[in-house]
């Protein structure tokens, strides 16, 4: 897909994400917005998947280990007609089909996530199944950076390298903030690239909010035959809304009417500039 069209879609997904958060009166706004560009490129330019193929055994899989960014995933799946729009109108509301963390009761959601440190192991299992069956599908897994303090991730990393899963692509949403503060203050992750390399991944860094750069990097996987790929995506928490960017308080917050109106104005302006 053309870069300009991808950018328009990312803009639309940001609008939809904020609509979902506003109508639910809840959501992980900052972490949703940091990963929207990654989701945009994956779902429109990378993944061999469509609403008609959600049960196709040969489809690519997207596993969102950072389940708290559910609204971003729901926004994309809803806009691409995997999920009926009505289903995400009251995320987490009474009798809503959509919970506040991804549920595979919704078409297109592969796995239930939300408790952190789970998605990577499940992804290793899916990628291993492809190898065992001689299938060509790939597994793309998005993990949060704060989430990497969960030890189970590193068990999964060891296994991914051990099984030579070059059909596994892990993307770290490196927005550098978690609920209590900077990732480096809460539990230092750096040198993160070296850690993943030491665990047997082929690693590349990218600006995770640069659509063109993301498109390029995804076209280059696997980076090395016989090794799992890791994309260290440097992102901005709250990306796209001026007053939310890099602001800790927007980890989990709903905009007021005034803030919502300003956010929509900013996104409208960005959209106009994209035409």
């Amino acid at each position, binding site marked *: 897909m053309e870069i300009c069209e991808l950018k328009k879609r990312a803009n639309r997904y940001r609008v939809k994400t904020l609509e979902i958060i506003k109508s639910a009166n809840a959501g992980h706004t900052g972490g949703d917005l940091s990963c929207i560009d990654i989701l945009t490129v994956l779902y429109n330019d990378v993944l061999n998947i469509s609403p008609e193929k959600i049960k196709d*055994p040969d489809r690519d899989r997207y596993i969102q280990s950072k389940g708290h960014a559910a609204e971003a995933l729901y926004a994309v799946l809803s806009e691409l007609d995997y999920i009926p729009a009505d289903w995400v109108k009251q995320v987490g509301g009474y009798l809503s089909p959509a919970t506040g963390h991804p549920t*595979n009761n919704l078409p297109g959601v*592969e*796995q*239930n*996530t*939300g*408790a952190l*440190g*789970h998605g*990577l*192991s*499940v*992804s*290793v*299992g*899916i*990628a*291993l*199944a*492809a190898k*065992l*069956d001689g299938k060509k599908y790939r597994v793309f897994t998005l993990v949060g950076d704060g989430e990497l303090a969960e*030890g*189970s991730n590193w*068990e*999964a990393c*060891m*296994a991914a390298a*051990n099984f030579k899963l070059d059909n596994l692509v892990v993307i770290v949403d490196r927005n550098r903030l978690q609920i209590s503060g900077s990732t480096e203050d809460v539990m230092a992750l750096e040198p993160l690239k070296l850690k993943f390399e030491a665990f047997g991944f082929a690693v590349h860094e990218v600006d995770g909010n640069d659509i063109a750069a993301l498109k390029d990097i995804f076209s280059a996987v696997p980076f090395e035959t016989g090794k799992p790929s890791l994309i260290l995506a440097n992102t901005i928490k709250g990306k796209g809304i001026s007053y939310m960017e890099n602001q800790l308080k927007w980890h989990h917050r709903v905009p007021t009417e005034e803030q919502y109106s300003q956010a929509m104005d900013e996104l409208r302006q960005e959209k106009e500039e994209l035409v």
Partner: protein
Amino acid sequence: MMRPLEKGVANLEHMAAVLTAQAENDPNLLIVTSDSRGSGKVGGFAERFPKQLVEVGIAEQNSVGISAGLASCGKKVFTISPGSFLSARALEQVKNDVAYSKNPVALLGISSGVSYGGLGATHHSLHDLAALLAIPDLDLIVPADNAETEAALLSYLENPRPVYIRFGKKAMPHFYESSKDVKIGNISILNEGKDVLILATGEPLAESYEAVTNLEKEGVSCSLVSVHTLSPFDETTVLDLASQTKAILTVEEHSVYGGLGSLVASLLMEKRIWRPLGKIGFPREELVTGNQGEIFRHYGISPYGIESYVTKMLKKV
């Protein structure tokens, strides 16, 4: 009338034999181990079907997560790890990645209860039934003998769904002619009597069986039931039997908090079946040290312990 029983092999060994036989014709059958192929008795399986055994190292959380991923792609997955670790260390993966996500993994909790004997509390699983009974979309099976073991494994292969199957490691007598006599999802009535109903689950069925044989000789008429399937729980049959007896006793290799005894007690209270109820199992305390048999005897999981308990109960009826 109780009959003398022939000795079988350890359920764990029979499990390995059944899976090896089934793997002959099913390349989709996988075993996932966390450095547990020896204790799981699947070393022979690994040699025969090296591509069907996935070794993940000493990493139980990862083993369950990987198993969930494999199962989501249509693999029939048997995940082997000591019950203690599988149900505690990997509990969140069991809850979320297997049960909640409805990935049909068969979790095989081996050397469960106090099978490890003197190795102590780190290796005992006195809590696994309590923890797992509260999780929806997860079946719970505790086979007592080789037939129940085989029935549980075949049931999963015929209709894969999330299940935890709990194994001990001592040789068990045969309670059935064949696995076809076991109906997974129900309970098995091994003897019918009018004075007392004994419900046992897992390996203590052997001690219960011997106790019932002795009690019958003394003129005490006992019903003996094997509760191999705890979830789904065969409430109808339990209630039917309970309403026809004078007293009820549960026997389990588990804490008396949250296992079979608690399950039966809450059911009877809820349905207003007022009968004296005894629970034999482990108290909520650090257990004495010893081998499995010694620990069993210490806490009354023995023919003598069961007979004494029944005699005392009936005196008060």
